[in-house]
């Protein structure tokens, strides 16, 4: 079977400590794939290795073409985009300026539609450091989405958001995957977001693959419960 984005045996070692070992997963267009696990499970490390931010082990394929080790800029131009655990925007630029910058870098695309969908119209001419944290997270998401990427790797996009803001974000993620046919890998601690938007979940524990399946199965999986709480009792 052919997948849009495939990661094989991804691994990472920090000075002898294994942070991630032999984790493989595939992403399909129009689907949000959740990557969950307790703190230190290796979720962010996985995205960092796969996106070329950190060197690591394993192989990455996009549309059956191996792209292992290509630079972050080449990866973005190929159609693979990512966000970061901490808000990663340009505080001194206005929202408009940074979206325009992203639009030019990613090769043109969907800025108008994006601004409308994320509700950023009112703050377009405001410097990013002047807008609320929730809006900054949306700008962050906008920067990742400009240029119609085919694959989107999101590292805790709901971190620091209120329940209401997370609910809005969940709606956006569903729309992005379904309407724009984007393959999304979502690393997230907010289980409300995960269970609302993900069609498939992969669970990591201590840097190793634990289990994969639909959210309903994962929710009651004893191994997952033990990984999170230390006991199935």
């Amino acid at each position, binding site marked *: 079977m052919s997948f849009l984005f495939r990661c094989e045996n991804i691994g990472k070692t920090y000075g002898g400590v294994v942070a991630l070992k032999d984790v493989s997963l595939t992403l399909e267009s129009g689907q949000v794939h959740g990557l969950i696990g307790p703190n230190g499970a290796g979720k962010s490390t996985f995205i960092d290795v796969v*996106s070329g*931010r950190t060197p690591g082990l394993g192989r990455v394929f996009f549309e059956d073409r191996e792209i292992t080790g290509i*630079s*972050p*800029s080449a*990866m*973005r*131009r190929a159609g693979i*985009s*990512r966000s*970061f655990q901490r808000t*990663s*925007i*340009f*505080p*001194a*630029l*206005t929202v*408009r*300026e*940074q*979206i*325009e*910058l*992203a*639009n*030019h*870098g*990613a*090769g043109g695309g969907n*800025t*108008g539609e994006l*601004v*409308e969908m994320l509700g950023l*119209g009112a703050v*377009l*001419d405001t410097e990013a450091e002047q807008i609320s944290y929730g809006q900054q997270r949306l700008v962050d998401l906008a*920067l990742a989405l*400009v*240029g119609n990427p085919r694959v989107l790797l999101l590292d805790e996009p709901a971190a620091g958001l209120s329940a209401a803001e997370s609910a809005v974000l969940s709606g956006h993620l569903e729309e992005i995957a379904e309407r724009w046919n984007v393959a999304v890998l979502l690393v997230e601690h907010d289980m409300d977001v995960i269970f609302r938007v993900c069609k498939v979940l992969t669970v990591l524990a201590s840097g190793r693959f634990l289990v994969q399946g639909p959210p309903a199965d994962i929710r009651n999986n004893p191994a997952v419960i033990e990984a999170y709480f230390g006991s199935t009792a």
Partner: protein
Amino acid sequence: MANQTLAHSFRESPILRPSGLIVLAILTATVVILTATGSRITLSLLAQAAIISILALSVGFLARTADLISFGHAAPFGLGAYGTALLFQHGIPAEVGIWLVLVAVFALFFVIGLVVGKLNGIAFSMLTLALGQFFYVAISKLRAITSGADGLTVSLPRSLFGLPGRTYQTPDGMFIIASVILAALVILIYLFEASRTGRLAIGVRENEERVLFLGYRTKILKAAVFATSATIAGVSGVLFALYQGFVSPEIVHWSFSGNALIMVILGGSLAVWGPVAGALVFFFLREWLSDLTEHWLAVLGVILIAVTVAWPGGITGVAKVLRARISGRERNGGGK
């Protein structure tokens, strides 16, 4: 909202706003009045201040655009000055020689920028210090070419860029020439910052990793910003050589770079014009303090510490606070 709206709504450069043009007009009038009424000593001081303002502008440009502090900008300044002196000695047409010098400075520092592009913070500053001292030692020791500590005399041509050669060595002539070049460079930097490339440079300064993940390559841009800054310092060096008619290794010494940095600290780099204001304050403060006491350097040091502690943003920082207060007061007044 359409893409077209985005494209047409770039933030205007401050220099293109009416307030910017008014400031430019006032500065032009000031230069004209000072030239007409100033004493020879005042004009000489102003000419030197205008030349060194360009050096401070180059250091400030790098600090503002790339968040990099250079301790070695005396090197491109000195290369500009020595290059001019040497090419004039070898009978190369003056205008061609000056352009050659500036292109060579850009090319050299572009290559250096490619090599040191990954450095930032204190590592970059120390490397520029070492680089600056390398050029200082090289110029001091290469006696066959540079005459070492004896320095070189600059043989001015009869005519340069359509002006009599002598004009470049008169205080009023050089004051006007340096002021025009300084104003042109300030305007160009403002326009650069308002351009897409300028915003990309600001993006790299603020979050280079994000810029990479937006699909850009940053290495060339960073090297180009460094080289542009060095070339501006080179322009200052060329003007210095033309005005002084003599160049010696002192102008490549790290302490010369240090003075430029003091000007940037005094003026601040929150606005493009900050280092220029800092250079003017530095020159007149130095003149005034050296009349008062032979220990003027110590007094200047105390002033520098006070500025750094009380107003970390220098003159531009104070201006920003004042502007915010005034606009806040206007808003409050308007709301009543």
